[in-house]
Protein backbone atom coordinates (compact mmCIF):
# COMPACT_ATOMS: atom_id res chain seq x y z
CA UNK A 1 0.00 0.00 0.00
CA UNK A 2 1.25 3.43 -0.96
CA UNK A 3 1.51 6.13 1.67
CA UNK A 4 2.72 9.74 1.65
CA UNK A 5 5.57 10.38 4.09
CA UNK A 6 7.24 13.58 5.34
CA UNK A 7 10.93 14.07 6.23
CA UNK A 8 11.78 12.29 9.47
CA UNK A 9 8.90 9.83 9.19
CA UNK A 10 9.78 6.23 9.98
CA UNK A 11 9.67 3.87 7.00
CA UNK A 12 10.96 0.62 8.46
CA UNK A 13 12.02 -0.69 11.85
CA UNK A 14 15.07 -2.31 10.28
CA UNK A 15 17.83 -0.60 8.31
CA UNK A 16 17.25 -0.61 4.59
CA UNK A 17 19.45 1.16 2.06
CA UNK A 18 17.05 3.15 -0.05
CA UNK A 19 17.91 6.41 -1.80
CA UNK A 20 16.45 9.43 -0.02
CA UNK A 21 16.56 7.90 3.45
CA UNK A 22 18.76 8.00 6.52
CA UNK A 23 19.39 5.25 9.03
CA UNK A 24 19.45 6.12 12.72
CA UNK A 25 19.65 3.55 15.51
CA UNK A 26 19.01 0.74 13.03
CA UNK A 27 15.77 2.31 11.76
CA UNK A 28 15.08 3.81 8.35
CA UNK A 29 13.64 7.33 8.06
CA UNK A 30 12.64 9.36 5.01
CA UNK A 31 14.46 12.64 4.31
CA UNK A 32 12.06 13.91 1.66
CA UNK A 33 8.39 14.39 0.94
CA UNK A 34 7.79 11.09 -0.80
CA UNK A 35 5.45 8.28 -1.59
CA UNK A 36 6.45 4.98 0.02
CA UNK A 37 5.33 1.51 -0.91
CA UNK A 38 5.45 -0.71 2.19
CA UNK A 39 5.39 -3.99 0.28
CA UNK A 40 7.72 -3.26 -2.60
CA UNK A 41 9.98 -1.05 -0.44
CA UNK A 42 10.09 1.66 -3.11
CA UNK A 43 10.47 5.34 -2.18
CA UNK A 44 9.41 7.81 -4.86
CA UNK A 45 10.32 11.42 -4.00
CA UNK A 46 7.49 13.90 -4.52
CA UNK A 47 9.80 16.87 -4.03
CA UNK A 48 13.51 16.84 -4.58
CA UNK A 49 16.51 18.35 -6.23
CA UNK A 50 18.54 17.13 -9.13
CA UNK A 51 21.70 15.15 -8.36
CA UNK A 52 23.87 15.00 -11.50
CA UNK A 53 24.82 11.53 -12.70
CA UNK A 54 27.16 11.07 -15.63
CA UNK A 55 25.13 10.44 -18.74
CA UNK A 56 22.25 12.75 -17.78
CA UNK A 57 20.93 14.97 -20.54
CA UNK A 58 20.59 18.57 -19.41
CA UNK A 59 19.35 21.84 -20.81
CA UNK A 60 21.04 25.05 -19.74
CA UNK A 61 21.83 28.59 -20.67
CA UNK A 62 25.35 29.78 -21.46
CA UNK A 63 26.12 32.25 -18.70
CA UNK A 64 29.65 33.26 -19.46
CA UNK A 65 32.12 32.75 -22.30
CA UNK A 66 35.68 32.53 -21.00
CA UNK A 67 38.68 31.91 -23.18
CA UNK A 68 38.74 28.12 -22.97
CA UNK A 69 35.55 27.34 -21.12
CA UNK A 70 31.83 28.11 -21.14
CA UNK A 71 29.96 28.46 -17.86
CA UNK A 72 26.42 27.09 -18.00
CA UNK A 73 23.49 28.04 -15.79
CA UNK A 74 21.62 24.82 -14.94
CA UNK A 75 18.91 26.16 -12.56
CA UNK A 76 20.48 23.90 -9.92
CA UNK A 77 22.88 24.21 -6.97
CA UNK A 78 25.73 23.37 -9.34
CA UNK A 79 27.39 25.20 -12.21
CA UNK A 80 28.01 23.56 -15.55
CA UNK A 81 31.29 23.81 -17.46
CA UNK A 82 31.96 23.06 -21.10
CA UNK A 83 35.57 23.06 -22.24
CA UNK A 84 35.91 24.67 -25.65
CA UNK A 85 37.87 21.68 -26.90
CA UNK A 86 34.81 19.45 -26.27
CA UNK A 87 32.60 21.64 -28.43
CA UNK A 88 32.27 21.70 -32.19
CA UNK A 89 30.32 24.95 -32.21
CA UNK A 90 30.99 28.33 -30.68
CA UNK A 91 28.47 29.77 -28.27
CA UNK A 92 27.71 33.22 -26.91
CA UNK A 93 26.22 34.14 -23.55
CA UNK A 94 22.45 33.57 -23.60
CA UNK A 95 22.45 30.56 -25.90
CA UNK A 96 20.26 27.64 -24.84
CA UNK A 97 22.10 24.34 -25.12
CA UNK A 98 21.52 20.65 -24.66
CA UNK A 99 24.46 18.68 -23.28
CA UNK A 100 25.39 15.47 -21.49
CA UNK A 101 26.94 15.25 -18.03
CA UNK A 102 30.46 13.84 -18.25
CA UNK A 103 31.44 13.99 -14.60
CA UNK A 104 31.26 15.97 -11.38
CA UNK A 105 34.55 17.37 -10.14
CA UNK A 106 35.39 17.65 -6.45
CA UNK A 107 34.15 21.23 -6.19
CA UNK A 108 30.72 19.96 -7.35
CA UNK A 109 31.01 21.59 -10.75
CA UNK A 110 29.31 19.63 -13.50
CA UNK A 111 31.58 18.96 -16.48
CA UNK A 112 29.46 18.76 -19.62
CA UNK A 113 30.14 17.27 -23.01
CA UNK A 114 28.54 16.98 -26.44
CA UNK A 115 26.86 20.41 -26.38
CA UNK A 116 24.28 21.28 -29.02
CA UNK A 117 22.60 24.64 -29.54
CA UNK A 118 18.81 24.69 -29.32
CA UNK A 119 17.29 27.41 -31.50
CA UNK A 120 13.71 28.61 -31.25
CA UNK A 121 11.10 26.62 -29.36
CA UNK A 122 9.88 27.08 -25.83
CA UNK A 123 11.40 26.28 -22.44
CA UNK A 124 9.31 24.75 -19.70
CA UNK A 125 10.51 24.63 -16.11
CA UNK A 126 9.32 21.65 -14.05
CA UNK A 127 10.26 20.07 -10.74
CA UNK A 128 13.30 17.80 -11.22
CA UNK A 129 11.59 15.12 -9.09
CA UNK A 130 8.83 14.79 -11.71
CA UNK A 131 11.17 14.16 -14.65
CA UNK A 132 11.15 10.31 -14.33
CA UNK A 133 7.33 10.38 -14.52
CA UNK A 134 7.36 12.71 -17.53
CA UNK A 135 9.74 10.36 -19.33
CA UNK A 136 7.79 7.28 -18.29
CA UNK A 137 9.02 3.72 -18.16
CA UNK A 138 11.39 3.17 -21.07
CA UNK A 139 10.63 6.77 -22.15
CA UNK A 140 7.14 5.58 -23.08
CA UNK A 141 5.24 8.63 -21.87
CA UNK A 142 7.34 11.16 -23.74
CA UNK A 143 7.42 8.98 -26.89
CA UNK A 144 3.64 8.84 -27.00
CA UNK A 145 3.42 12.56 -26.24
CA UNK A 146 5.65 13.54 -29.15
CA UNK A 147 3.98 11.07 -31.49
CA UNK A 148 0.49 12.40 -30.72
CA UNK A 149 1.34 16.11 -30.85
CA UNK A 150 4.04 16.14 -33.50
CA UNK A 151 6.39 18.16 -31.31
CA UNK A 152 10.10 17.81 -30.81
CA UNK A 153 10.83 17.58 -27.10
CA UNK A 154 14.13 17.42 -25.25
CA UNK A 155 13.90 16.68 -21.53
CA UNK A 156 16.70 17.96 -19.33
CA UNK A 157 17.13 15.99 -16.11
CA UNK A 158 17.73 19.31 -14.33
CA UNK A 159 14.05 20.20 -14.75
CA UNK A 160 14.09 22.16 -18.01
CA UNK A 161 12.12 20.90 -21.01
CA UNK A 162 12.52 22.27 -24.53
CA UNK A 163 9.54 22.02 -26.90
CA UNK A 164 9.49 22.94 -30.58
CA UNK A 165 7.18 22.53 -33.60
CA UNK A 166 3.72 20.95 -33.61
CA UNK A 167 1.19 21.53 -30.84
CA UNK A 168 3.34 23.25 -28.25
CA UNK A 169 0.44 24.41 -26.04
CA UNK A 170 -1.13 20.97 -25.86
CA UNK A 171 2.22 19.42 -24.95
CA UNK A 172 2.72 22.04 -22.23
CA UNK A 173 -0.72 21.29 -20.84
CA UNK A 174 -0.02 17.56 -20.81
CA UNK A 175 3.35 17.99 -19.11
CA UNK A 176 1.84 20.24 -16.45
CA UNK A 177 -0.84 17.64 -15.86
CA UNK A 178 1.78 14.90 -15.45
CA UNK A 179 3.67 17.13 -13.04
CA UNK A 180 0.68 17.82 -10.81
CA UNK A 181 -0.75 14.30 -10.79
CA UNK A 182 2.48 12.31 -10.93
CA UNK A 183 1.62 10.17 -7.91
CA UNK A 184 -1.94 9.20 -8.90
CA UNK A 185 -3.45 6.12 -10.51
CA UNK A 186 -4.41 5.95 -14.17
CA UNK A 187 -2.39 8.98 -15.22
CA UNK A 188 -1.27 7.60 -18.59
CA UNK A 189 -4.89 7.00 -19.61
CA UNK A 190 -5.88 10.53 -18.63
CA UNK A 191 -2.94 12.07 -20.49
CA UNK A 192 -3.82 10.06 -23.58
CA UNK A 193 -7.47 11.13 -23.47
CA UNK A 194 -6.36 14.77 -23.04
CA UNK A 195 -4.21 14.40 -26.14
CA UNK A 196 -7.05 12.71 -28.08
CA UNK A 197 -9.34 15.63 -27.25
CA UNK A 198 -6.71 18.14 -28.25
CA UNK A 199 -5.98 16.36 -31.52
Amino acid sequence: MQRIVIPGEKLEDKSLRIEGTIIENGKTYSTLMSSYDDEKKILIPLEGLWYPISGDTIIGRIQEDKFNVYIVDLQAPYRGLIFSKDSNEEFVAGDIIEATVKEMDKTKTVILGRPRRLTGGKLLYVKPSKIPRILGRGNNMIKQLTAKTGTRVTVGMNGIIWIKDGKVDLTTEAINMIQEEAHTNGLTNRVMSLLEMGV
Partner: protein
Amino acid sequence: MSSSQEKPQLIVDGKRLDGRAFEELRPISIKTNVIRNAAGSAYIEWGTNKILAAVYGPTEALPKHTADPERAVIKCRYMMAPFSSLEDHGRTGPNRRAIEISKVTKEVFENVVLLENFPGTEINIYVEVLQSDGGTRAAGVTAAAVAMASSGIPMSDVPFGVSIGKIGDTLVVDLNKIEDNYSDADMPMVIGPKQGNLLLLQMDGNLTKEEVTSAISLAKKAGEVISKLQSDALKEPYLKTLEKYKNEAPSQQGNKE
Protein backbone atom coordinates in the same frame (compact mmCIF):
# COMPACT_ATOMS: atom_id res chain seq x y z
CA MET B 1 10.19 44.77 34.13
CA SER B 2 7.01 46.39 35.31
CA SER B 3 6.17 46.60 38.99
CA SER B 4 3.79 44.14 40.60
CA GLN B 5 1.07 46.77 40.97
CA GLU B 6 0.65 47.12 37.21
CA LYS B 7 0.71 43.36 36.73
CA PRO B 8 -2.63 42.08 35.47
CA GLN B 9 -4.15 38.92 36.89
CA LEU B 10 -3.23 36.28 34.34
CA ILE B 11 -5.22 33.38 35.77
CA VAL B 12 -8.87 33.84 36.68
CA ASP B 13 -10.98 30.91 37.95
CA GLY B 14 -8.47 28.34 36.76
CA LYS B 15 -8.53 29.71 33.22
CA ARG B 16 -6.15 31.98 31.37
CA LEU B 17 -7.07 35.43 30.05
CA ASP B 18 -8.18 34.16 26.63
CA GLY B 19 -10.16 31.31 28.20
CA ARG B 20 -7.64 28.57 27.54
CA ALA B 21 -6.72 25.78 29.92
CA PHE B 22 -3.11 25.69 31.18
CA GLU B 23 -1.93 23.11 28.67
CA GLU B 24 -4.02 24.27 25.74
CA LEU B 25 -2.50 25.63 22.53
CA ARG B 26 -3.98 28.46 20.51
CA PRO B 27 -5.71 27.38 17.28
CA ILE B 28 -3.10 26.74 14.58
CA SER B 29 -3.51 26.47 10.83
CA ILE B 30 -0.72 25.92 8.31
CA LYS B 31 -0.77 26.24 4.54
CA THR B 32 2.03 25.28 2.15
CA ASN B 33 3.12 26.55 -1.28
CA VAL B 34 1.89 30.10 -0.89
CA ILE B 35 4.78 31.79 -2.71
CA ARG B 36 5.26 30.72 -6.32
CA ASN B 37 8.88 31.76 -6.83
CA ALA B 38 10.20 30.20 -3.63
CA ALA B 39 11.56 26.65 -3.52
CA GLY B 40 9.24 26.06 -0.59
CA SER B 41 6.94 28.26 1.45
CA ALA B 42 4.43 28.15 4.26
CA TYR B 43 1.93 30.42 5.97
CA ILE B 44 0.98 29.87 9.56
CA GLU B 45 -1.77 31.35 11.68
CA TRP B 46 -1.03 30.61 15.32
CA GLY B 47 -3.72 32.30 17.37
CA THR B 48 -3.49 35.85 16.07
CA ASN B 49 0.13 35.45 14.92
CA LYS B 50 0.38 35.56 11.15
CA ILE B 51 3.71 34.48 9.72
CA LEU B 52 5.03 33.81 6.23
CA ALA B 53 8.09 31.62 5.76
CA ALA B 54 9.92 30.98 2.50
CA VAL B 55 12.96 28.92 1.56
CA TYR B 56 15.15 29.66 -1.45
CA GLY B 57 18.02 27.58 -2.73
CA PRO B 58 20.37 25.84 -2.60
CA THR B 59 22.21 28.34 -4.80
CA GLU B 60 25.83 29.35 -5.11
CA ALA B 61 26.91 31.01 -1.85
CA LEU B 62 27.53 34.73 -2.26
CA PRO B 63 29.65 36.60 -1.23
CA LYS B 64 32.07 33.80 -1.96
CA HIS B 65 33.96 33.91 1.36
CA THR B 66 30.78 32.75 3.15
CA ALA B 67 30.80 29.46 1.24
CA ASP B 68 31.91 26.27 2.97
CA PRO B 69 33.56 23.78 0.58
CA GLU B 70 32.26 20.83 2.61
CA ARG B 71 28.65 21.72 3.28
CA ALA B 72 25.88 24.15 2.48
CA VAL B 73 25.51 27.25 4.63
CA ILE B 74 22.14 28.40 5.93
CA LYS B 75 21.26 32.07 6.01
CA CYS B 76 18.18 33.15 7.86
CA ARG B 77 16.35 36.43 8.15
CA TYR B 78 13.59 36.80 10.72
CA MET B 79 11.79 40.10 10.45
CA MET B 80 8.80 41.70 12.07
CA ALA B 81 6.75 43.90 9.81
CA PRO B 82 6.53 47.53 11.03
CA PHE B 83 2.76 47.09 11.38
CA SER B 84 2.94 43.71 13.13
CA SER B 85 2.42 44.76 16.75
CA LEU B 86 1.46 47.56 19.08
CA GLU B 87 5.06 48.13 20.08
CA ASP B 88 7.50 50.15 18.06
CA HIS B 89 8.78 48.27 15.04
CA GLY B 90 8.80 51.48 13.04
CA ARG B 91 12.27 51.36 11.57
CA THR B 92 12.78 48.83 8.83
CA GLY B 93 15.81 46.56 8.90
CA PRO B 94 16.90 44.08 11.52
CA ASN B 95 17.21 45.22 15.13
CA ARG B 96 19.01 43.43 17.98
CA ARG B 97 16.10 41.12 18.64
CA ALA B 98 15.64 40.18 14.96
CA ILE B 99 19.34 39.41 14.58
CA GLU B 100 19.23 37.14 17.62
CA ILE B 101 16.17 35.23 16.44
CA SER B 102 17.65 34.89 12.93
CA LYS B 103 20.73 33.34 14.50
CA VAL B 104 18.88 30.81 16.64
CA THR B 105 16.58 29.86 13.74
CA LYS B 106 19.62 29.31 11.55
CA GLU B 107 21.15 27.05 14.17
CA VAL B 108 17.97 24.96 14.39
CA PHE B 109 18.09 24.23 10.67
CA GLU B 110 21.82 23.55 10.64
CA ASN B 111 20.98 20.54 12.80
CA VAL B 112 18.19 19.06 10.72
CA VAL B 113 19.04 19.82 7.07
CA LEU B 114 21.45 17.39 5.38
CA LEU B 115 23.92 20.12 4.49
CA GLU B 116 26.76 17.90 3.28
CA ASN B 117 24.73 17.09 0.14
CA PHE B 118 25.26 20.60 -1.24
CA PRO B 119 28.80 21.83 -0.63
CA GLY B 120 29.61 25.41 -1.53
CA THR B 121 25.98 26.50 -1.63
CA GLU B 122 23.66 28.56 0.51
CA ILE B 123 20.07 28.01 1.57
CA ASN B 124 18.08 31.13 2.42
CA ILE B 125 15.25 31.13 4.93
CA TYR B 126 13.01 34.15 5.27
CA VAL B 127 10.57 34.45 8.15
CA GLU B 128 8.28 37.48 7.94
CA VAL B 129 6.01 38.23 10.87
CA LEU B 130 2.94 40.05 9.56
CA GLN B 131 1.01 40.14 12.82
CA SER B 132 2.42 39.24 16.20
CA ASP B 133 0.97 38.18 19.52
CA GLY B 134 3.77 36.45 21.41
CA GLY B 135 5.59 33.24 20.57
CA THR B 136 6.60 34.32 17.08
CA ARG B 137 10.01 32.67 17.14
CA ALA B 138 8.45 29.28 17.87
CA ALA B 139 5.74 29.83 15.26
CA GLY B 140 8.33 31.10 12.78
CA VAL B 141 10.49 27.97 13.14
CA THR B 142 7.38 25.79 12.83
CA ALA B 143 6.44 27.51 9.56
CA ALA B 144 10.00 27.54 8.23
CA ALA B 145 10.31 23.79 8.87
CA VAL B 146 7.20 23.16 6.77
CA ALA B 147 8.56 25.44 4.04
CA MET B 148 11.90 23.60 4.09
CA ALA B 149 10.23 20.18 3.88
CA SER B 150 8.03 21.25 0.96
CA SER B 151 11.06 22.60 -0.94
CA GLY B 152 12.59 19.14 -1.47
CA ILE B 153 15.77 19.90 0.47
CA PRO B 154 16.58 16.67 2.34
CA MET B 155 16.21 16.97 6.10
CA SER B 156 16.31 14.45 8.90
CA ASP B 157 13.38 15.86 10.85
CA VAL B 158 10.62 18.49 10.76
CA PRO B 159 11.11 20.49 13.98
CA PHE B 160 8.36 22.37 15.78
CA GLY B 161 8.52 25.25 18.24
CA VAL B 162 6.47 26.03 21.31
CA SER B 163 6.95 28.20 24.38
CA ILE B 164 6.30 27.19 27.97
CA GLY B 165 5.91 29.78 30.70
CA LYS B 166 5.30 30.07 34.40
CA ILE B 167 2.49 32.13 35.88
CA GLY B 168 2.71 32.09 39.69
CA ASP B 169 3.46 28.43 40.36
CA THR B 170 1.71 27.05 37.31
CA LEU B 171 3.39 26.01 34.09
CA VAL B 172 1.42 27.08 31.02
CA VAL B 173 1.80 26.18 27.37
CA ASP B 174 2.00 28.65 24.47
CA LEU B 175 2.13 32.13 25.98
CA ASN B 176 0.51 35.05 24.20
CA LYS B 177 1.77 38.64 24.29
CA ILE B 178 0.32 39.70 27.66
CA GLU B 179 1.32 36.45 29.38
CA ASP B 180 4.76 36.75 27.83
CA ASN B 181 5.22 40.27 29.22
CA TYR B 182 3.95 39.64 32.76
CA SER B 183 4.70 35.96 33.38
CA ASP B 184 7.38 34.83 35.85
CA ALA B 185 9.25 32.82 33.25
CA ASP B 186 9.12 32.17 29.55
CA MET B 187 10.97 29.36 27.83
CA PRO B 188 10.71 29.00 24.04
CA MET B 189 11.81 25.62 22.75
CA VAL B 190 12.30 23.95 19.39
CA ILE B 191 12.21 20.16 19.37
CA GLY B 192 12.86 17.57 16.68
CA PRO B 193 9.95 15.19 17.20
CA LYS B 194 11.68 12.08 15.84
CA GLN B 195 13.85 11.50 18.89
CA GLY B 196 12.84 14.49 20.97
CA ASN B 197 16.08 16.40 20.36
CA LEU B 198 16.14 19.90 21.82
CA LEU B 199 17.28 22.22 19.03
CA LEU B 200 16.58 25.56 20.71
CA LEU B 201 16.19 26.44 24.35
CA GLN B 202 16.04 29.99 25.58
CA MET B 203 14.78 31.25 28.90
CA ASP B 204 13.63 34.51 30.35
CA GLY B 205 12.91 34.53 34.12
CA ASN B 206 13.50 31.89 36.73
CA LEU B 207 12.62 28.22 36.75
CA THR B 208 13.79 25.47 39.09
CA LYS B 209 15.44 22.32 37.78
CA GLU B 210 12.24 20.29 38.25
CA GLU B 211 10.17 22.94 36.50
CA VAL B 212 12.51 22.90 33.48
CA THR B 213 12.22 19.12 33.24
CA SER B 214 8.44 19.19 33.39
CA ALA B 215 8.37 22.16 30.95
CA ILE B 216 10.28 20.10 28.39
CA SER B 217 7.90 17.18 28.75
CA LEU B 218 4.95 19.59 28.42
CA ALA B 219 6.49 20.96 25.22
CA LYS B 220 6.89 17.46 23.81
CA LYS B 221 3.27 16.72 24.60
CA ALA B 222 2.10 19.92 22.89
CA GLY B 223 4.42 19.07 20.00
CA GLU B 224 2.44 15.97 19.14
CA VAL B 225 -0.43 18.25 18.14
CA ILE B 226 1.80 20.69 16.25
CA SER B 227 3.68 17.93 14.43
CA LYS B 228 0.39 16.41 13.32
CA LEU B 229 -0.70 19.80 11.91
CA GLN B 230 2.64 20.22 10.09
CA SER B 231 2.41 16.73 8.64
CA ASP B 232 -1.20 17.25 7.52
CA ALA B 233 -0.34 20.57 5.88
CA LEU B 234 2.53 18.95 3.97
CA LYS B 235 0.54 15.91 2.85
CA GLU B 236 -2.72 17.70 2.04
CA PRO B 237 -2.04 18.77 -1.60
CA TYR B 238 -0.91 15.24 -2.54
CA LEU B 239 -3.71 13.46 -0.75
CA LYS B 240 -6.23 15.72 -2.48
CA THR B 241 -5.15 14.65 -5.99
CA LEU B 242 -4.70 11.07 -4.83
CA GLU B 243 -8.25 11.01 -3.46
CA LYS B 244 -9.64 12.50 -6.69
CA TYR B 245 -8.38 9.66 -8.87
CA LYS B 246 -8.57 6.92 -6.22
CA ASN B 247 -10.96 4.66 -8.11
CA GLU B 248 -9.18 4.72 -11.44
CA ALA B 249 -7.43 1.59 -12.52
CA PRO B 250 -3.66 1.76 -12.88
CA SER B 251 -2.60 2.47 -16.47
CA GLN B 252 -1.20 -0.43 -18.43
CA GLN B 253 1.76 1.45 -19.85
CA GLY B 254 2.38 3.68 -16.86
CA ASN B 255 5.39 3.42 -14.63
CA LYS B 256 5.48 3.28 -10.85
CA GLU B 257 1.81 2.45 -10.64
